[in-house]
């Protein structure tokens, strides 16, 4: 039920926006997103963007995977 998918914003008009993934477009609302721009990635749940996906934070997330994997490797020895 709380599924949310990352989509890319292609049009913005006030609180209405069009977001797409792989050419599939859907109408969404962006009431909960400050400063939304074309090209932004947002997580969409039940027709509403619930947050922006920040590229810098996404990279930090991948860093975290790596840190945990390295730590697990040492612990697993």
């Amino acid at each position: 039920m709380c599924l949310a998918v990352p989509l890319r914003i292609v049009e913005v008009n006030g609180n209405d926006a069009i977001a797409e993934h792989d050419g599939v477009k859907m109408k969404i609302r962006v009431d909960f997103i400050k400063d939304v721009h074309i090209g932004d990635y947002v997580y969409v749940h039940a027709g509403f963007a619930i947050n922006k996906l920040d590229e810098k934070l996404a990279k930090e997330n991948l860093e975290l995977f790596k840190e945990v994997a390295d730590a697990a490797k040492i612990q697993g020895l």
Partner: protein
Amino acid sequence: MQLKFKDYDKMSNIVNYLRNYNGPAVKIMEVCGTHTMSIARSGIRTLLSEKIKLISGPGCPVCVTAINRIDEIFELAKRHDTIIATFGDMLKVPGSKAGFNLSMLKSQGANIQIVYSAMDALNLAMNNKENEIIFLGIGFETTAPGTAVAIKEAAVKCIENFSVFSMHKYVEPALRALIESDDFDIDGFLCPGHVSTILGIRGFEFLVEEYKIPSVITGFEAEDILVAIYKILNQITGDNPSIENEYLRIVSYEGNKLAQNMLNEVFYPDDDLWRGIGVINKSGMAIRNKYSKFDAVKKFNINLDFVDKSTACKCGEIIKGKIQPDECKLFAINCTPENPIGPCMVSSEGACAAFYKYLRF
């Protein structure tokens, strides 16, 4: 943005560690139904040491909707001038009469429309002025802000044939009820990633500050879940219960203030009935008086019944983590996804449906 969240090489180290884990036996609860599905689909359970048990929690909104509410929905659906607008998850949920559901009512002529957003329900109201449109508000803090926007917009635009039957619920009171129950024996929580997107890390600090339970907010890729399990184990073995955020890319400390404000503007906490758990104080999102014109409970005088009806189905025990789906006598014999007896089998995110699909053999 090309970011690779599926990385087998990195994960194999974590999987090896979790497979060979030989510390204290632990029970970890995934609170969220979407996690239940991710865990089942990815086969994570089969990768873990026998000492690590994953238990599904009360985080499937369809599964925790009381039988009484389902019966009340059926009564609304029978009204001749009414269109019920609902997420598809609700169509096959049985009420107190076995085998009877919204889908059957639809085949008997009731006007039931599946929508993907509360805004779709509002549009239905604008385009069908001669009908009453009742939107079934199901979901936790991830879903409810959208419903709140629809209610607020209905008020602004004076769309008088639109109302919401709010069965929305807050996650925190349910977790507190679970933790404070007599036989609670969960050692760690995988906290719901998208509810946390709205509430922030703050929204789950109580798990550690008040109850000292190791907790990790996590995303929905198999990798997210593996990393989170590893972190919970480290908190347990290091005797260092904390609230950690693994879902860095979307969850912040404060959460989404705009969504929180919208929730508070339209809803207030009221006592609510949870299937299999009973009444939990201040756990339901009731619609504020300011918006009472759009509250289906008031508009149609729904007499909310607060007695938790029990059935042979053990969903209530399953969502509290007391038993696994295959310990219910009905599981896979009388109760299957094609013929579901209880909501945990109806909802694709229910523990029984996930277990049936991925773990039966």
